[in-house]
Every structure is written in C-alpha cells, then in structure tokens.
C-alpha cells in the first residue's frame, strides 16, 4: 500500500512533502545564487558561507542539546538560515561575523521564541539587521576584485559616493558588481525563485506583489517618472530578489491567507523604496521585511476567511 492511504481521522489527503523536502527545495533554489557569489567573490565568499552554515547548524544542535530537546538539525532549516545569512553578508567580513550572526539568528530570533515555525521574524534577516546596525563599517565593505566599491543603491542615493560610477544594467542582471555575496546576480536569483514557484514551495503572491509594488513606487517617487532603467535598477539591485523570493516568503513569518500575502508583499514594496530613498541606510529590503514580519499576526487576524455557514452576528 502506498503512503497515501492511512487509516486515521482527517485530513485524509496527504502529500509526500514534509519540512525536510521543502527545505531541500529551498537549498536547491539557492544554489545558483550561491555558486555565482562564490565565482564572483572567490574563496572568501565560500569561507563565509561555510562558516555561516556550520555555525548555524552547530548553534541549533547545541541549544537543543542544552535544553534537552530533540535535536532537529536533520530538517535542513538551520542550514537554510545559515545559507541565507551567508548570502546576505559581504565576503570581506572577518571570521567572527558569521558566527555571531548565526548565534543571534538561531538562538535569539529562532529558538528563544519556540524554534521552527514559531519565529516572529526571519532569523537570517534578524541577524543581518543586528549585524548591520552594530557593525555598519564592516557590513558595508563591498569590494569587487579587491577594490572598494559602492553598491548601485548607495550610488543612487547621493552625491556622497562621488567617484563611483553606476554599473551597467547588464552587470546588475548577471551580477558582476559589488554587494553581499548572494544578492548581486539577478538572473541566478530569478532562476531559484522560478524553481520554488514551479515546485509550489512558495506562493506567487508575496514575491509578485512585492516586486510589482517596488516598480510602481520607483515610478511614483523614484524621481525619473516612468523610466525603465530606474525601475530595473530598483528591482534588480540590492537584496530585493533574494528577499522577495526567499525571505519574505518564510512560512512562519508571513501571512496565511491570500489577501494577507498580498498585503505583506505590497507593504514590503512600499517600505523598501521609502527606506532606499529617504532612510538612513542605502538598502531597505531587510528592514522592510522585518517590519512587515511584525505585522503578520495583525494581518492574519484581520484576514481570517469567513467560515462557511456561520450565522451573521
């Protein structure tokens, strides 16, 4: 008999997917961006990513062992947190940044709030924000081929980055630019995102409305009107694609209902562009997603679908 037939109470229809198959799909989807990051930034990038993953898994095991829980590092979720954190760091960071970041992500953001599925914000993003605010200098040391560069967004922002020229759109698309390890290559991230959509691991609503609202905001307040290159710069640069496909869609910290997902996506989009243009930091994706993460319980509460047959009060 196949696994599909199980004698039990409802639900009766089951799929083979479970936490680890879903998580494995996410890892597969992140591979192109990871590979490109390593190709683009070299050995240091590989080292940073490995440090992140190993220490994330290590802290998860350590915490669960210490609190006498079942050790669940086999479910890939700590690996993904570590990998996402690694992709969100510049490759120039000293060795202790990945370790400290993983500790914050796993212990403080994830385990202290109840572990897998209970975290109120995306652990990797929480850690990135923690590191960015604490070590602004280290966390924005973008280099490409050993030369310090400003990211396209920093150049966009101001006269303060005089002497740096904006990269060509095509470089932005393929990824040969300065930035965090995993966020430079738009094409690699889109490939991964499409894979997740195709495997139905993520729903199109959050990334779709997120990207669309960023584009709309870029037209509305980007300063150049309906200018294709402004829109593309906003959509392809920074951590937007990485955030939209892989982090805003985190199951535990995104809304359940379809309308809720759309609210989440639009909220992230609006906040991202506002922070990019008016905020103190050049990139707004991580803060935007974290802020919307905090609204998820509220969004869920007001978007509960009407239950069938209920008598109106």
């Amino acid at each position: 008999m196949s696994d599909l037939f199980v004698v039990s109470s409802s639900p009766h229809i089951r799929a083979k997917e479970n936490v680890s198959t879903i998580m494995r799909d996410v890892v597969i989807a992140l591979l192109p961006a990871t590979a490109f990051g390593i190709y683009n930034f070299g050995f240091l990038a590989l080292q940073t990513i490995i440090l992140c993953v190993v220490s994330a898994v290590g802290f998860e095991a350590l915490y669960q062992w210490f609190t006498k829980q079942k050790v669940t590092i086999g479910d890939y979720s700590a690996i993904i947190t570590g990998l996402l954190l690694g992709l969100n760091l510049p490759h120039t960071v000293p060795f202790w940044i990945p370790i400290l970041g993983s500790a914050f992500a796993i212990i403080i953001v994830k385990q202290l709030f109840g572990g897998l599925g209970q975290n109120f914000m995306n652990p990797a993003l929480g850690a990135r924000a923690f590191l960015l605010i604490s070590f602004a200098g280290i966390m924005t040391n973008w280099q490409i081929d050993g030369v310090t560069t400003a990211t396209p967004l920093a150049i966009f922002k101001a006269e303060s980055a005089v002497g740096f020229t904006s990269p060509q759109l095509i470089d932005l698309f393929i990824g040969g630019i300065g930035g965090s390890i995993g966020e430079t290559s738009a094409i690699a991230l889109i490939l991964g995102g499409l894979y997740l959509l195709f495997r139905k691991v993520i729903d199109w609503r959050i990334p779709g409305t997120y990207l669309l609202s960023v584009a709309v905001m870029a037209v509305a307040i980007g300063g150049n009107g309906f200018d294709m290159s402004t829109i593309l710069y906003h959509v392809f640069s920074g951590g937007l694609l990485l955030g939209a496909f892989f982090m805003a869609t985190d199951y535990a910290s995104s809304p359940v209902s379809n309308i809720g997902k759309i609210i989440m996506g639009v909220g992230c989009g609006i906040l991202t562009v506002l922070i990019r243009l008016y905020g103190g930091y050049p990139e707004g994706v991580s803060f935007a997603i974290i802020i919307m993460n905090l609204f998820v319980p509220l969004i869920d509460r007001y978007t509960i679908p009407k239950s069938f047959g209920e008598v109106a009060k």
Partner: protein
Amino acid sequence: MSGVMNRLKNGLVTENPVFVQVLGMCPTLAVTTSAVNGIGMGLATTAVLIGSNIVISMLKNIIPSKVRIPAYIVVIATFVTLIDMLLQAYIPSLYDALGLFIPLIVVNCVVLGRAEAYASKNSIFNSLFDGLGMGLGFAFSLGCIGLVREVFGAGKAFGFQVMPNFFEPITILVLAPGAFIVLGLLFALFNYINSKKAKA
C-alpha cells in the same frame, strides 16, 4: 532589625522592581546606556523613593483617601524637582547624562506604587527602609543592564576600557533595540536562577 533586612531583601530580590514587578520600564530602557547612567538614575530614584515614602507615611492619617493620588503625586513631584535642582547645582556631570529623564521619575510607577502599596499603610521607619530597598533594587537592576550594555556595546565598564583592542563593540546594544534585547535576556537569566532556587 530583622524588619530592616527583610525590607532590603524584599526590594533587592523578592520583589525586585525591574526583574520581578516589571515596573518603571521607561527609565530602565532609556537611560541604561552605561553602568554609571543606570546606577545614577537608580540612586536618584532611591532618593525620591525614600523621601516620598517617609512623607507619605507621615501623612497617612491626614491625607483623605479620596484625594490621595493627587496628594501623593504632589509629594513625589516636589522631591523630583528638588533632586533635579540639586543635581544641576552640585553634580552637573550626572545631570548632563540624566537631565531629560529626571522629571520622568514623577511618573515612575515604582515610586507611586510604593506610596500606594506600602508607605500609606506602614510605619515611617519601615517605609524608609522599604524605599531604600526598592530604590537599591532599582539601582542594582539598572546598573546590571547598563553594565552589560556598556561592556558589549562600547567595550567599557564604568567608563574604562575593559575589552581588548580587537573587540569590535556591538553597537546595537547601546541603541534602543539593545535595551530590549538585554532586558529580555536578563529577565530570562533571573527567572532561570529563581526557578533553580525554587526547586532546591
């Protein structure tokens, strides 16, 4: 004498205003960017607490219950203003660090809470030590939070460099979010210690 020790222990541990009663969160979060600021705020609050507890205990039979809250607030506000002027005149460095927050002691729930819950029902002598105990408990808690934030957020303790040169300060800890993170972690630590004690 055992009554005195009892009041002090009550304020410092059993009913610690910050870690047990979770009162006075505004100064707790706002001024604890360094150990000195935390302790300074704690001691300023202690002075107000002792003064207001004594006076309110003295007046407990005179103040009619219907107007007791405004009466308490007037007494507390008087002491706060006194402290404010005295600090400004004689300890300007501390005033510089705390200036903005001193008027807020008026609305610190610890002070009004002790007036209502303790001083208005107990003798002057006990009220004095209740104020001292609560105040020291508050100062101790704020000092702890301030010390943790200062050591890890700035690499210093009481203004002196304590961390080695290669230590990179975790700046977020001396910013507003760090106050919440450190407070939460210390809550957890105190609860852990207390639960251990309860079992033993």
